[in-house]
């Protein structure tokens, strides 16, 4: 049941993102000062308009594209980089593990905003900054969790048995260890996907959002702060879109995990 909900939501978001220019009749970046801050239900603007008169429905739909883009990019980069590093570190142990963990510690011990500021100094504000900053911060979670899991799985009986049978190390890693660690990677990935989209909101809050007038849910939410008591719809609809996307992707991740993990099909 949950799986259906997950699939339906995720597919809807993807379709909405793909069909944005056709579903919404307005241009998301077209400003119309005379009709600023109109409430939902205004003719021509089912979800209302923002402070510069831009149609909110159009911005939310186009925002879906950006959200999916940011999510996919960052998840791919971090999962691959972090996962691989964690895998190797956990499996080989000894110094690669130590080095990796210390590098992760070094990075985690300084505040995220420093990363964002430094990247900002190099590439300026905008989409690249967001993806780079999020990736730089995100790989560590994978690395640590995967390493921890690998350490535990390594000790399990079937792994010992396979090693005793003379299975090569690489085969051991990819045939026996990885499949048992994969569910964790998938769950973490699904958690991270929605988190990266939400983190975009936090980055915008700190002042490092996308360049206007690009519609991104996070920066829309961040801007809506100033209008909280005046135009509730500016916070409600992007927030709703964010929540539904996160829900859908997470449920999907759960379903994937359940499918991949035979032990649980009891």
């Amino acid at each position, binding site marked *: *049941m*949950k799986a259906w909900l997950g699939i339906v939501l995720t597919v809807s978001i993807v379709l909405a993102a793909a069909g944005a220019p056709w579903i919404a009749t307005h241009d998301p970046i077209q400003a119309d000062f005379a009709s600023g801050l109109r409430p939902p239900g205004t003719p021509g603007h089912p979800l209302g308009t923002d402070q510069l008169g831009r149609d909110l429905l159009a911005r939310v739909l186009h925002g879906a594209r950006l959200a999916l883009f940011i999510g996919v990019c960052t998840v791919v980069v971090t999962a691959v980089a972090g996962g691989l590093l964690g895998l190797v570190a956990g499996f080989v142990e000894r110094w690669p593990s*130590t080095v990796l*963990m*210390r590098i992760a*510690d*070094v990075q*985690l*011990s*300084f*505040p995220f*905003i*420093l*990363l964002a*500021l*430094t990247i*900002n*100094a*190099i590439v300026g504000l905008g989409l690249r900054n967001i993806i780079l900053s999020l990736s730089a911060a995100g790989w560590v*979670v994978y690395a*640590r*969790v995967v390493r*921890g*899991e690998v*350490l*535990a799985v390594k*000790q399990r009986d079937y792994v010992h048995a396979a090693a005793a049978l003379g299975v090569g190390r690489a085969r051991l890693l990819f045939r026996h260890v990885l499949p048992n660690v994969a*569910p*964790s990677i998938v*769950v973490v990935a699904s*958690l991270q996907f*929605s*988190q990266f989209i*939400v983190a975009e*909101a*936090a980055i915008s*809050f*700190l*002042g490092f959002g996308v360049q206007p007038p690009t519609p991104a849910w*996070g920066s829309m*939410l*961040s801007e809506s*702060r100033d209008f*909280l*008591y005046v135009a509730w719809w500016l*916070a409600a609809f992007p*927030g709703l879109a*964010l*929540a539904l*996307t*996160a*829900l859908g992707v*997470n*449920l999907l991740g*759960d379903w994937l*995990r359940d499918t991949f*993990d035979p*032990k*649980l099909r*009891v």
Partner: protein
Amino acid sequence: MRRYLLARLAQTVLVVFLSLTAVFGMVRLTGDPVLLFMPMDIQAKDVNEFRERLGFNDPLAVQYARFLGNAVRGDFGESLRYRRDALGLVLERLPATLLLAGCALALTLVIAVPLGVVSAVRRDSVFDHVSTVVTVLGQATPGFWLGLMLIYIFAVQLRWLPTGGVGTAAHLVMPAVVLAAFYAARVARLTRSAVLDTLGEDYVLTARAKGLAETRVIGKHTLRNSAIPIITLAGLEAGQLLGGAVVTETIFAWPGLGRLTVQALLNRDFPVVMAAVSFTSIVYTLTNLLVDLAYGWLDPRVRKA
């Protein structure tokens, strides 16, 4: 064991050192510190004069050596913005930060772990479905949005709680809840996942077959073995909480370390940034050390001799 401990402590020192070096470089990349604390009608040559006097015109290597030499003695210099001892400013923020972090962590564990365990044990029940939706929403809601909503409802409309600041226990409620909401969701989900993993293991079947009470099965056999990923996450998060929760502190005007660090960074107040990062760096690596030791205690197979 002792050798391991010493080796790890040595690594901690190395990490802090590397961290400081990295931050030293990164912070200088972010821009000119002198501009931001000077009045706007300052002339170019006066800017230079100030920079000269503060030592920013010296070659980078010299600045770095000077910084390290002083940092080892606990002297991070004077805040460019406030003209006071930088480390002193950081330490002043500690009580407030610890209070908030402690409450948030306690709240998180108290809510999330039972939630996760029950969800796993009663898999696919209504409880499980509802808790999944709730935890996902907990993570999908940006902290600032949740905070502002809570302020609007509880402070403006109902007048039950203050909008922010410090003072009484009431001031602690909303910030702790906002922080905990996010972390609790994560911990709950991972707990559920980890417990589910363990429940499928043979020793659990054995324990059940032996006729052990269900709570014993879960408490002793399951939880201990699924603890690893949970503790990893909790450890990561404790470290981050102690570094100060920037967004929450800003929204609720909580005088913590996160807020200080962010403002110092945005104002390019280098001495304060270095002091703050040194502090969080040490705390963070020590927390990780504790977490790794906890691994060893919980799962003897993982222990490094």
